[in-house]
């Protein structure tokens, strides 16, 4: 494509690059700030002296992480949660999206089930009934409590349904002529064609399970069973001094360690930041076909 390049066009380009660059920088800053804090001296951080560069550069925080057993444990719990949760969601999403992508005429009852899913997605039962339910299943303090309640991600299913609908009808028809059943069609025709959208919902799933913290705090009975984000959340929340007896006050000086916390945040963010670029390739394609079919 050839375009004539006038002076106006070039200066417009400069403006565009500048603007884009600025916005991009602003999105990088928080990450950079956290990294800077993690490499700084803790007293300097407590006094609020760190803005752009580490003050009194040191690795103390990272040394401490390496020897922190709880951090390791929490890391493992999170990995387990992500693996289990993502696998289960993957299977359920696939199994539900396929029949629900059929027209109501081919699959009577489809619309009713669809609305049922949507109602459930929007309705929030409230914390206490939810907690009591999980408790009555005897799942408190078990990894299943962190996985099974989110096994049916309705939003993701809707994305996949729309993606399936966008696939050419001829494919399935050809399969039908060959006498293939629904399971065969799903696994051998639909699944191989859905890599982008399945990669996308998988990424969603991974990020969701990796970042969730509240349910871990509520449902796990011991800090050793917390997933990583719950563990980190406990470190970064403000310490409420009124809860502490005067003998326990010393804790404040031990705990006001923003540096160590920043280092833990950095380590916590790393896995998602590493995975993201690999899945990003499919991601654009997946979302767009899932949401925008023309």
């Amino acid at each position, binding site marked *: 494509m050839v375009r004539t390049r006038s002076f106006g066009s070039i200066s417009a380009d400069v403006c565009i690059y500048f603007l884009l660059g600025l916005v991009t920088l602003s999105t990088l800053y928080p990450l950079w700030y956290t990294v800077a804090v993690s490499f700084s001296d803790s007293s300097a951080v407590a006094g609020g002296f760190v803005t752009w560069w580490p003050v009194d550069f040191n690795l103390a925080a990272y040394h401490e992480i390496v020897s922190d057993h709880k951090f390791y444990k929490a890391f493992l719990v999170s990995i387990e949660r992500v693996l289990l949760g993502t696998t289960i969601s993957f299977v359920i999403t696939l199994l539900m999206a396929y029949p629900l992508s059929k027209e109501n005429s081919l699959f009577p009852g489809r619309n009713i089930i669809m609305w049922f899913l949507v109602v*459930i997605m929007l309705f929030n*039962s409230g914390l206490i009934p939810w907690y009591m339910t999980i408790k009555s299943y005897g799942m408190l303090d078990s990894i299943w409590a962190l996985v099974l309640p989110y096994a049916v991600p309705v939003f993701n299913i809707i994305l996949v349904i729309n993606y399936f609908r966008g696939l050419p009808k001829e494919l399935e028809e050809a399969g039908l002529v060959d006498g293939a059943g629904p399971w065969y069609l799903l696994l051998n025709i639909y699944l191989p064609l859905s890599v982008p959208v399945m990669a996308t919902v998988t990424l969603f799933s991974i990020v969701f399970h990796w970042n969730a913290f509240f349910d871990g705090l509520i449902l796990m009975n011991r800090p050793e069973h917390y997933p990583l984000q719950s563990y980190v959340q406990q470190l970064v929340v403000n310490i409420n001094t009124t809860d502490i007896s005067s003998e326990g006050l010393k804790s404040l000086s031990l705990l006001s360690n923003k540096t160590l916390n920043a280092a833990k945040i950095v380590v916590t963010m790393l896995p998602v930041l590493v995975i993201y670029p690999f899945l990003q390739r499919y991601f654009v394609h997946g979302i767009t076909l899932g949401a925008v079919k023309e």
Partner: protein
Amino acid sequence: MKNRTFILNYYLMLIPGLVLLILFSVVPMLGVAIAFQDFNSGLGLWRSEWVGLDNFNYMFQLSDSRVIFINTISLAVMKIIANLIVPLVFALLLNEVRKKAFKRFVQTVVYLPHFLSWVILAGILTDMFSYHGLVNQLFGAFGFEPVLFLASNTWFPAILVSSDVWKEFGFNTIIYLAALTGINSSLYEAAAIDGAGRGEQLWHITLPGIRPTIVLLATLSLGNVLNAGFDQIYNMYNPLVYSSSDIIDTYVYRVGLLDVQYGLATAVGLLKSIVSLILIGISYTLASKFANYRIF
């Protein structure tokens, strides 16, 4: 009959998911009964005293209720609008960039804040908007008096909206960009031959080309009208700005878990769910009518 076996198999495929949904979503819903009770934990859900609509009546008596509903809707609407326009502008600008590597880099990076939790971001934003923070320093350089952004009922909602956009605009940008690449490039070439400038091309080709996408995203976001962002507001607000920023979710959290008024909190939550459901219904209808699109 072949059709019958197909339908049977469809149901088989749905069973695991439906069972899980019933166990973990439908069963807890019985708990909304609390909204109609003076809940007493010793007696439990079925033996607590039923009080009819008392909790709802009290909710409407509270002077806060109106403020909270208005805040929720106004914040959510502002966020929805900004989240449609900013990514569109950004995508259009990015689309003008011809350096592939730069484009890819920007696209990857702007999506980053999405991965950070509000717990972390709120701390950083509070620093940046503080009295001696980065933003006031920049303002100072242009001769402005420093402003207490986080205490001001004018500025604070603006900060909520803009930081939300800042965190999430990468997502919609990707969708717009995909729609943009879908526009037939021969249209631009023809326009260029006719002597149309960048502006005219934008107005006559680009925007009409992605109009369906804009309409679609707009209707999809309607279901979020009552989700003004709990995590964000909870981590950033303070009593000074309650009057402009206290929303349903933060209120329910405070009243429900901290002040242990289960009945009231559940009632407010229930009302929210019902209104959301109505809004989704509306957006479903609108989407199929104006964008000829079935959301689900």
